[in-house]
């Protein structure tokens, strides 16, 4: 039985290692940090923002109505796929999302 268990674990680990290269992270966060963050900077001309600025429905409305266009047209800077990934990231970490907890954690 122990041997079976070890084979099972070894198999699981192999499975994980083999599939890692094919399972690239959805990089909404890095697009948000690099592309959005290039203009939205702390102390910069354009105010920095966190995903928790809006609730998920507000983020959905923001993208649906393409509200960014009122300030600046970013359609040249982002591909459709990138915008979708940023949207998913912002919704996932929106103000009404599950928040981390620990003593003294803001």
């Amino acid at each position, binding site marked *: 039985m122990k041997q079976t*268990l070890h084979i*099972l*674990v070894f198999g*699981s*680990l192999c*499975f*994980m290692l083999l*599939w*890692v*290269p*094919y*399972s*690239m*992270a*959805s*990089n909404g*966060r*890095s697009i948000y940090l690099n592309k959005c963050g290039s203009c939205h900077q702390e102390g910069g001309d354009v105010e920095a923002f966190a995903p928790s600025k809006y609730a*998920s429905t507000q983020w959905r409305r923001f993208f649906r109505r393409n509200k960014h266009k009122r300030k600046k047209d970013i359609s040249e800077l982002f591909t459709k796929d990138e915008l979708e990934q940023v949207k998913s990231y912002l*919704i*996932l970490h929106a103000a009404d*999302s*599950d*928040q*981390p*907890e*620990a*003593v*003294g*954690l*803001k």
Partner: protein
Amino acid sequence: MQHPSKIFFLGIMMLLFVFELSLSAGEKYVTPDEIVPILDEIDKLNNRLDELGQQQDSEKLPEKDQQSLNFLKQDMSELTEILERVETKSIVDRLEIGAEIRTRIDWYDFRGRDNKPFTNDPQGERLHERVHLQPSNRFRLNLRTQISDNLKFTSRLTMMHHWSDDDFSAYPDVNFLNSTRVPGNLNLKVERAYVDYFFQPHELFPMAFTFGKLPSTDGLPTDLRENTPRKSTYPAIAYNVESDGIAMSLDLEPLTHIPQTAARTIVALRYDDHEKYFMGNELSDKSGVYRVDEKAMDPVYFLVFQLESHFPDFFGGLLAMMNVLYIPQAPKPDFRYNDILAPFYEDDEKAPLSTRGEDSLGYLTKYTLFIESKQFFGFNFDWFAGLSYLRTHAKSATEFILKPRNLDTPIDLDPLLAREAYELLKGYGATYEKELESLKNAPTPIGLLNNDGRSSHDAHCIHVGGRIDVPIPMKQPPKFGVEYNHGSRYWSNFGEASEDPLHKLTTRGEAWDFYLLQPVSRFFIMRMGYTVTLHDYDQNLSFYYGEPLAIDHKITNMYLLMDAKF
């Protein structure tokens, strides 16, 4: 008895501390930042409309324009009113409410032999027991509010029970560690309720003072298995039980320029309230919180220090924690609720059975290193590793004794261990033989992970695992995770409040855990899993009580759960 001057001195110290908190807080109440600028804009527009209105008085506008201006004024007035209502609501509605529902179905399988009581010797046949389809529900009500910009309240109320069952959870010796975390009755219990007060005595030292029932359950890496953000102060391998206490956190980020670097100190305490009755057993003849019950368990102090830091650019991004847990005095156990042991606690000097030993069994220190990495090097792969080392310093043991001089027909011998009485006294008179024989199952002395009150021990545990997104072209692919832990003979986890029903990290032996979780939507997750624990040593009387005894148990748990959070 505390001397009044000590209490007075403590009071002065507390006042100075509070004074320091209030000086360095710089409190600012939360205002709806998004609304104020809009209201300012509306004010400007209203002013502009007023100017237009004045122009209208001096220069007669065409009727059509005048009507448009009036409509515009009405619209602006309505808009202002609506926004002011939103503003008022956002100021007043401070409490955010969230809820979680979990339905879980478990299958268990147990294989092993029972031991003769308090010995390493197995007895009877090897058993194979199965529990099929044990369903349970868990409901959590999460309440949170940002009272002001430096005062935050968080709480979690929990109900957990087996389907249509309303039992009291019957593990009284450790239930102070996990009463909200094991299936019990239908009552909603407080799992955590605490306030964080953020202040800054110096610009380089932002601090937070926390008090209440603290977030010390759901220790890392539970966040991976539960698919949530971090939900605890500590790694599960270090400390994963409910605790009431106070904490001080020092944000070291301004000093070190390393993100999320902090030092956290917690003083948690279990205070026995000298309950008079418990489950029908009279525990004390004293009533009133101001009375001293000599046989009650002394307070258990848990002192925890943790240094943690986030290294986003090091080795794929790491959260690292160094944790020290110290129990300065491990109080002797109080087993008066136990029907078999209750006679040893009778408050009568002339009773033949009694307990003997010092109030403290010794002290214990535990050191833990833990790292967790999410989206390792940008891949959808999360992993963690924890290593813990524990050292006990034995001082005493509680002995369950028989006083031969207090027997109906006294025997002139000094008190002796009850479990040895039969062998030692069987020659003294047949009258007692039957009663004395039943004492053969009385406990050995109960010390701090020993049965002699003298042996100090060390122990270790490793806990490693990972989780990966299964590469299926889905918007929300399933996640597959594996965890492994190994605890040595004297390992003591303080993990009775863990989310898994086997409390696998308390295992003195090996445990494997496999799970597959499938996010159905942002609010709904399904998970199935298989946990196997291979026990080389038991938990004796639970907690840190007694020498772990050799066993050969294998327990498996297969489960399916559904989680909805909103």
